[in-house]
């Protein structure tokens, strides 16, 4: 907890594999400042989890990163190019799987739709979509409508859609917030597997500290209000992780405690010293 106050935690030494660079990002709606002054660099191939208390503007931050909304100040650049609209090398997985999929299109057509403008050949589009659907384990459900599938499977469709788009970076906005705990664990492991298999860069926003620590190579801890960076933590949990054994390790418990305290601390800075460490699971 002593090393938690690094206001410009994102200023890691410049690396050649910088993929997404966020500099002094701020967003205000009128007088209401949502995002403070956020700087962070996402490295190519890493899994970054952004965690913060609810109402910390996590979704706003993600929408700024994706170019869906423009920041009031500062810049986001992807591979050195300033993001002003959604870039072609980026895909987003939204929280509301049931609302981000088109109920009138089959699973396969849902995955194929974003490929239309870049891939003119329909057979080619279908091949790409099928590959992605096989990757997420939905080979046998491609002809169904999304709403005929369970919540977890619907989110797999959304993930497949992102994969088929072949992006350099995938942004995920609380993607597992509305599925049950078991499914959630499965989807987390699937996401880890995909990241390791395909070498894609993932930025995932969550309010769940365990999830953030379990998935991330680095955890970006946010405080509110306005949202600013509290800490950026390397997890060092290795590439192979397991829901049971990884979460039982000492390192996991320490990381979890640290993030937990920082989130409280970020919330109420004056009483930070008196916060007791929560029991590690």
């Amino acid at each position, binding site marked *: 907890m002593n090393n938690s106050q690094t206001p410009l935690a994102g200023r890691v030494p410049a690396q050649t594999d910088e993929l997404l660079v966020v500099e002094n990002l701020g967003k205000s709606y009128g007088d209401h400042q949502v995002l403070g002054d956020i700087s962070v660099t996402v490295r190519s191939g890493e899994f970054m989890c952004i965690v913060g208390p609810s109402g910390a503007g996590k979704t706003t931050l993600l*929408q700024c990163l*994706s170019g*869906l909304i423009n920041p009031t100040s500062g810049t986001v650049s992807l591979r050195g190019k300033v993001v002003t*609209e*959604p870039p*072609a090398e*980026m*895909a*987003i997985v*939204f929280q*509301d799987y049931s*609302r*981000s999929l*088109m*109920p*009138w*299109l089959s699973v396969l057509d849902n995955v194929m*739709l*974003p490929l*239309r*403008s870049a891939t003119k050949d329909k057979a080619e589009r279908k091949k790409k979509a099928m590959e992605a659907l096989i990757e997420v384990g939905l080979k046998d459900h491609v002809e169904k*409508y999304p*709403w005929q599938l369970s919540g977890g499977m619907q989110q797999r469709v959304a993930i497949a*859609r992102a994969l088929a*788009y072949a992006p350099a970076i995938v942004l995920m906005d609380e993607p597992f917030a509305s599925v049950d705990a078991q499914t959630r664990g499965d989807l987390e492991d699937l996401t880890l597997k995909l990241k390791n298999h395909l070498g894609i860069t993932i930025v995932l926003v969550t309010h769940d500290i365990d999830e953030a620590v379990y998935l991330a190579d680095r955890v970006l801890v946010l405080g509110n209000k306005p949202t600013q960076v509290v800490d950026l933590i390397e997890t060092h949990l290795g590439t192979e992780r397991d829901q049971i054994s990884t979460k039982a390790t000492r390192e996991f418990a320490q990381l979890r405690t640290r993030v937990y305290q920082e989130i409280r601390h970020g919330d109420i800075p004056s009483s930070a010293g008196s916060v007791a460490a929560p029991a590690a699971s």
Partner: protein
Amino acid sequence: MKRLTSLAWEIWLPLVLIILWLVLSAGSKSFYFPPLAKILETVNQLWFFDGIVENMLPSLLRILTGFGLALLVGVIGGVLLGLLPRFEEAIRPLLEFLRSTPGVALLPIAIIFLGIGDGMKVFMIALASMWPILLNTIDGVRSVEPVLLRMASSYRIPLKDKVRFIYIPNAAPQIFAGARVALAIAAVVMVVTEMVGSPGGIGYFILDSQRTFKVLNMWSGIVMLGVLGYLLNFGFRLVEARVLDWHNKKNA
């Protein structure tokens, strides 16, 4: 078997009513209300198949052309207005005014400019039946889930794909609801315009028979008009069941 029972369930009341009409009108001596048996006999003589070719087909062609035009203009206009909310706001009062004016009220003007031929009839059918399609399409286009639109822009889906794969399918259930109302309006306007228009068509046939005191012919025309309406609605339901397959299954 299940389909058979549901068909039987659907058909028993019409059958009972027809039989009741047959029995009760059997001994009728009234000039205006002849026995149903005689009406059906006239239907058979007059309509199969000379009458169908002479009068029913022209009517069918008119209503299909007019309704088709209404669909085309209603859906295209509805998508445009749905995507341009500021513009739609500006012309909304005008749309509401035009929509509230009963279509047939414009008949005298239409006759002045377009005459009493097919052009006028098709125009009137299209004009009167376009409104529910247009307004429902606007609402349907507006009601697209915001998450879906964010998804579409994050994947850089071009406007033409958004219209084809997101806006129109999203509006489809409402478009069909509007089209169903429109079809009923189209049938009414078809009959009215035929009654005031040039010869040819069921509407003209009915009025002409009445004016020349051929009451049996008149009744046979009314029966055939019912048949035409039923067939149109049946065809409409077939198309709807096919296009809205996902919607019906989802809400089942």
